[in-house]
C-alpha cells in the first residue's frame, strides 16, 4: 500500500468514525434523558419526532442559534482554547479503539496489512494512548475554569483537577491486572486473549478481574465527572461549575466532550473486561459464511456491550446521590488505591504459580 492510499484510507476511516461518534454522542444524550425520565416516573422528551427521536437534532440547532457571548473579564486565548481542547481530546481517543475483527470474511478474506477495517490505527501501546489523551483532556476543564475569571468556575476546575489526578492512579492500576493476563498493551491482543471460550474467558468472569472492573467503574465515573462524582459541576453549590461562563456552541462542546468521554470509557471497559467484539458464547456458534454477516456480527456484540455500559451509567446517575468532597478523596485514596494494588499482587501471584 502506498503512502497516498494509506492517507486516503485513513481519512475515510476518520471521517466515518467521527460522524458515527458525533451521532452516538447526540443519541447518548437522548438515551440519558429518556432513561432518567423513566427512573423518575415521567416520559422524558417525546414531542419531536416519533418517541422524541429527533430531539438531539433540535437541541443541536438550538445551541447553534443561541447568542455566543464572551464575558468582558475572561482571559480570551485560554477561554477560547478550553472547549476545543476538551472536545478534541474526547474525539481523539476513540482513534485507537478496535470495533471488530480486522480479518473480514471466513478464512480471513481481507487479511491484516492490506486494508484494516474497524480501527483507525492499531497501536502497540493503545491502552496507554487512551490514558494519555484522557489525561491531556483535563486541561480543557482546568483552563475553562481559570480563564472564566469567576469563582464558581475556578472552584469547579480546582475540584476537577484534584479529582482527576487522584482517580487516574486508581484507574491506571486497575488496568494492570488485565494487561498482566494478556501480556500486551495492544487493545486488539487484549481482546483476542479473551476470545475463545465466550463468557468464561472474559476478564471480568474467567479472569477473576471483577475487583479490577469495580475499581475501573468507580474511577471512570470520577474521570468523566459523572454522578455520583460530578462535583466539578455540582449545580446546587457551583451554579454550573467550570462551564458557568460559557454559552451557545462552546457550552455544547463541553457537553459533547463529556458524553464522548462516556462512550470512550464504555468502549475501553468493553475491550478490557467484557471481551470486546467477541460473542458471549465463544466458539460454540460457527462463524457465519456470508462475508457481510461475518463482519457485522462482531460489531453487533461490541455495540450491545457499550450500550449496556451507557445504560449502567445513566442508572447510577438516576440512583445515587452526589458524594461530598472529602468522602470523594477518602474513597479514592484509602479504598480504591489499596484495593487496586492488592488486585495487582494477587493477579501476578496467580499468574506466576498457576
Amino acid at each position, binding site marked *: 500500500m502506498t503512502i497516498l492510499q494509506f492517507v486516503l484510507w485513513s481519512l475515510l476511516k476518520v471521517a466515518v468514525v467521527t460522524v458515527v461518534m458525533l451521532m452516538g454522542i447526540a443519541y447518548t444524550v437522548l438515551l440519558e434523558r429518556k432513561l432518567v425520565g423513566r427512573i423518575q416516573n415521567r416520559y422524558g422528551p417525546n414531542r419531536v419526532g416519533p418517541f422524541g427521536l429527533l430531539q438531539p437534532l433540535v437541541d443541536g440547532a438550538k445551541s447553534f442559534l443561541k447568542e455566543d457571548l464572551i464575558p468582558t473579564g475572561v482571559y480570551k486565548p485560554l477561554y477560547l482554547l478550553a472547549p476545543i481542547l476538551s472536545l478534541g481530546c474526547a474525539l481523539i481517543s476513540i482513534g485507537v479503539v478496535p470495533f471488530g475483527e480486522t480479518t473480514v470474511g471466513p478464512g480471513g478474506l481481507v487479511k491484516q496489512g492490506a486494508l484494516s477495517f474497524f480501527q483507525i490505527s492499531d497501536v502497540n501501546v493503545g491502552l*496507554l494512548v487512551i490514558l494519555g489523551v484522557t*489525561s491531556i483532556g483535563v486541561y480543557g476543564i482546568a483552563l475553562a475554569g*481559570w480563564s472564566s475569571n469567576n469563582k464558581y468556575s475556578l472552584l469547579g476546575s480546582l475540584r476537577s483537577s484534584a479529582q482527576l489526578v487522584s482517580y487516574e492512579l486508581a484507574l491506571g492500576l486497575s488496568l494492570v491486572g488485565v494487561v498482566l493476563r494478556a501480556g500486551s498493551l495492544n487493545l486488539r491482543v487484549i481482546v483476542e486473549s479473551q476470545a475463545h471460550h465466550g463468557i468464561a474467558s472474559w476478564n471480568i468472569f474467567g479472569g477473576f478481574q471483577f475487583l479490577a472492573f469495580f475499581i475501573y467503574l468507580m474511577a471512570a465515573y470520577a474521570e468523566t465527572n459523572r454522578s455520583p462524582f460530578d462535583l466539578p459541576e455540582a449545580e446546587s453549590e457551583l451554579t454550573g461549575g467550570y462551564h458557568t461562563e460559557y454559552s451557545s456552541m462552546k457550552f455544547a462542546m463541553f457537553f459533547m466532550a463529556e458524553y464522548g468521554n462516556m462512550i470512550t470509557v464504555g468502549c475501553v471497559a468493553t475491550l478490557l473486561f467484557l471481551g470486546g467484539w467477541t460473542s458471549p458464547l465463544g466458539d460454540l456458534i460457527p462463524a457465519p459464511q456470508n462475508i457481510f454477516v461475518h463482519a457485522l456480527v462482531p460489531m453487533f456484540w461490541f455495540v450491545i456491550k457499550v450500550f449496556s455500559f451507557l445504560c449502567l451509567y445513566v442508572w447510577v446517575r438516576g440512583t445515587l446521590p452526589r458524594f461530598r468532597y472529602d468522602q470523594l478523596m477518602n474513597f479514592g485514596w484509602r479504598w480504591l488505591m489499596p484495593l487496586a494494588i492488592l488486585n495487582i499482587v494477587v493477579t501476578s501471584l496467580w499468574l506466576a504459580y498457576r
Partner: protein
Amino acid sequence: MHLILFFLFAGFCLAGAINLLLQSHPINSALSLIVVMVSLAVLYLMLGAEFLAAAQVIVYAGAIMVLFTFVVMLLNAGREDRTRGSKAARAVGFPAVVAILAMLATVVLQAQGWSGVILGSHITSTEEVSKVLFTELLLPFEVTSVLVLIAILGAVALATRGSGNPTANGERTAGK
C-alpha cells in the same frame, strides 16, 4: 518523512521552551512547558521508544503539569514584573549553559561512538524495555524507587509538621 516530522516537533519544542521564558504570566509558562513535554514525547516516538513516549505524556504532561497548573490556579498567581536581571548572572550564566551543553553532548556522542541516531519506523517494544529494566538495570531501578519513597515520606513529614497530630486531624474532618 521522519526528518520533516523531526524538524516540525523539534521546532515546537524549542518554541515552547523560549515562550516559557518570555511569558510573564505563570499559567502561560506552564502551558508552554506542556507543549515542550508533548513534543518531546513525539521525538521519543520517532526514536522508536513508544512506551517512553506514552509514559512521558501520561506522567509529565498529564499528572505533573496538572499539579503545576493546579497550584498556579489555587494561589491565583498574578503577572510577574519584568526585571533587567543581574549583570553577574548574565556574565556567568550564558558561558555556563554553553559549557554544560557541550559537556553533555560530548558524553552522549562518546557513548554512541560519534555516530548519529537513526530516525525511523523501528520500534522498541514494551517487553524489551521491561526485560532490560528488570534484569540488567534492576539495581538502579530499585534504588530509584527507594529514592522516590524517601521523597514522599519527606514531603508528608514536612506537610504535617506544625498542624498538630495529623491523623487525629484527618479523622475529625472525615467524621464531621
